[in-house]
């Protein structure tokens, strides 16, 4: 980490803390039904969103998933407007029309979370195509899960991006499960990165809980994409600490689909703790500096919740607005 400047390191930590705190709060609010609808959190998976987006420019694009809060925050999403969207308020990013699974902010290059598994892959490919057509040097990072890599859209998109050498980074966040099904029971390969070989593009396995490693791989992939070298498939190995969807215990009952010990094992590999240990051991960052980031984020989050609570609901008359340009 010696070669990385301190400001970047603090930014990486700040982003991970913002994601963690935002999602822990969102989980609690959703359990109290203060936030409606389906809510999927990525607690424990913060490093992949953070490391990848840190390797992007403001003018680059991302596509996200149903488990997208982390990606959005890492690309610059504001906690207050995200929270307001989750509350279904008019001040939210999508005026309350989208909710947790559908947040979009074009100004930040966020082409959208998505409720359809695998839908982001062709969209990211098209966004990269637009950069080529319009002669911009923008890169698109495409986040998706291990489960999505079994959709036809994954295979069609990798092939298309490869033959047209499009500037896209396919980021597979392999958290071991698609809903309640273990990845290995429905996926033909252990490492999804190996599927890149079928399309003649680089495929790399990354420690998805090590934000610095993710950042380095993503930076290389972005540089390759910008230089006309085409797409890369990065597989970030990670783990989902929480349920597939907040509140799943209510309908699953006691039927567990994984061992508690496995969850505990992965909690020991917490990306935030890992970073703290690095940072302090390096002697370049103090515990007080980390604490300051946490305190500031807590204040930002409290303000975001207050903003969401106080914001007005949309007027029913707004329901027919925004359908056509």
């Amino acid at each position, binding site marked *: 980490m010696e070669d990385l400047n301190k400001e970047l390191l603090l930014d990486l930590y700040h982003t991970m803390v913002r994601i963690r705190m935002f999602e822990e709060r969102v989980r609690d609010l959703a359990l109290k039904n203060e936030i409606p609808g389906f809510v999927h959190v990525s607690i424990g998976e913060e490093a992949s969103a953070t490391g990848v987006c840190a390797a992007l420019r403001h003018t680059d694009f991302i596509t996200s998933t149903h488990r997208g809060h982390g990606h959005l925050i890492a690309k610059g999403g504001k906690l207050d407007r995200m929270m307001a969207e989750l509350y279904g308020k008019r001040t939210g990013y999508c005026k309350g029309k989208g909710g947790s699974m559908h947040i979009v902010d074009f100004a930040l290059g966020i082409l959208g979370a998505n*409720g359809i598994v695998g839908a982001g892959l062709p969209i990211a490919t098209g966004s990269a195509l637009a950069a080529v057509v319009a002669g911009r040097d923008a890169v698109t990072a495409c986040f998706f899960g291990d489960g999505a890599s079994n959709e036809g859209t994954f295979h069609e998109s990798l092939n298309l991006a490869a033959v047209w050498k499009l500037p896209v980074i396919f980021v597979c966040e392999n958290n071991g499960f698609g809903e309640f099904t273990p990845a290995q029971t429905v996926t033909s390969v252990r490492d999804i990165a190996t599927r890149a070989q079928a399309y003649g593009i680089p495929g790399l396995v990354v420690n998805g809980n090590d934000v610095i490693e993710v950042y380095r791989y993503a930076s290389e992939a972005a540089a390759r994409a910008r230089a006309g070298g085409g797409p890369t498939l990065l597989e970030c190995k990670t783990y989902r600490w929480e349920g597939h969807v907040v509140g799943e215990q209510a309908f699953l009952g006691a039927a567990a689909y994984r061992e508690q010990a496995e969850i505990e094992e992965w909690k020991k590999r917490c990306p935030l703790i890992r970073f703290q240990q690095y940072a302090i051991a390096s002697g370049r960052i103090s515990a007080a500096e980390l604490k300051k980031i946490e305190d500031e984020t807590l204040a930002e989050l409290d303000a975001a919740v207050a903003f969401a609570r106080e914001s007005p609901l949309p007027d029913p008359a707004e329901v027919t607005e925004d359908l056509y340009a």
Partner: protein
Amino acid sequence: MAITTFVQAINQALTEEMERDPLTFVMGEDVVLSVFGATKGLYEKFGPTRVRNTPIAEAGFVGAAVGAAMAGTRPICEVEFASFFYCAFDQVCNQAAKLRYMSGGQAKMAITFRTVYGAMGGAAAQHSETVYGQFLSVPGLKIVVPSGPADMKGLLKSAIRDDNPVIVFEHGGLGRAREEIPAGEYLVPLGKAAVKRPGEDVTVVAIGAMVPKALKVAEKLAADKISVEVVDPRTLIPLDEETILSSVAKTNRAVVVDEGHLRGGAAADIAALIGEKGFDFLDGPVTRVASLDVPIPFSPPLEKATVADEARIEAAIRGLVGR
């Protein structure tokens, strides 16, 4: 008779039909653990050959169900949310629906698709849609929309025994609806509507989750001496035209209620039928109550403003009877 929920009714139908015919099998995403509980326990009972978790690959596994049906088995294929059918449209519309006809009647396509549809509170545009309207103009499919547990069980069993591709649409908001189901073998034929409440002044043709809503409104209006007959078509293809038309012949007024979008949907189809074949019975225009022609929005007040509801059903009935 035992009280059963909608989801338990599905589970009973699946269990009974799988016991009855060893060529039936269940496949879909997370059917082993069963998110909504409909397939719970089937894996333990019937084992891994006949109860299969699929990868998240709708075009692939829906298509595999088509192939398995052509080769003589009877797949029961779950598509978790109805909007995910869009990912598998070719296999449903170009393959399952057409292959028997195109092959001059050779292919037998005994597939049952089960899927959850409808607005259920904040699930937003890609998990709330009522998509059967999109399938109404695909000849070769049968479309079933049960409104309660007993019909659910009886219709699903008939669907599984049918030699054609049948899509059974289960409203996500009905999961915990409870009803008594007759003991023993209980079959409801496809193509037979049910008069859920007899009445004299106006016919309300209601579909799926709109049926319990229409019944509530009918109960309320009875206090105002407005007598509402509620007809539940139960299957949209085949459609029981006779029951609908004879109800309108009696009441001379018709409201069609559907959760699908207004344009091009099931309500449009049934209203056209009544207008065309029931014109002489009518004392007023056939009125449709359906969801607005926008994607289902996330925010609860917007969702409420979009989806057909009891207030709009009541207003439509009062508008027709003039009080």
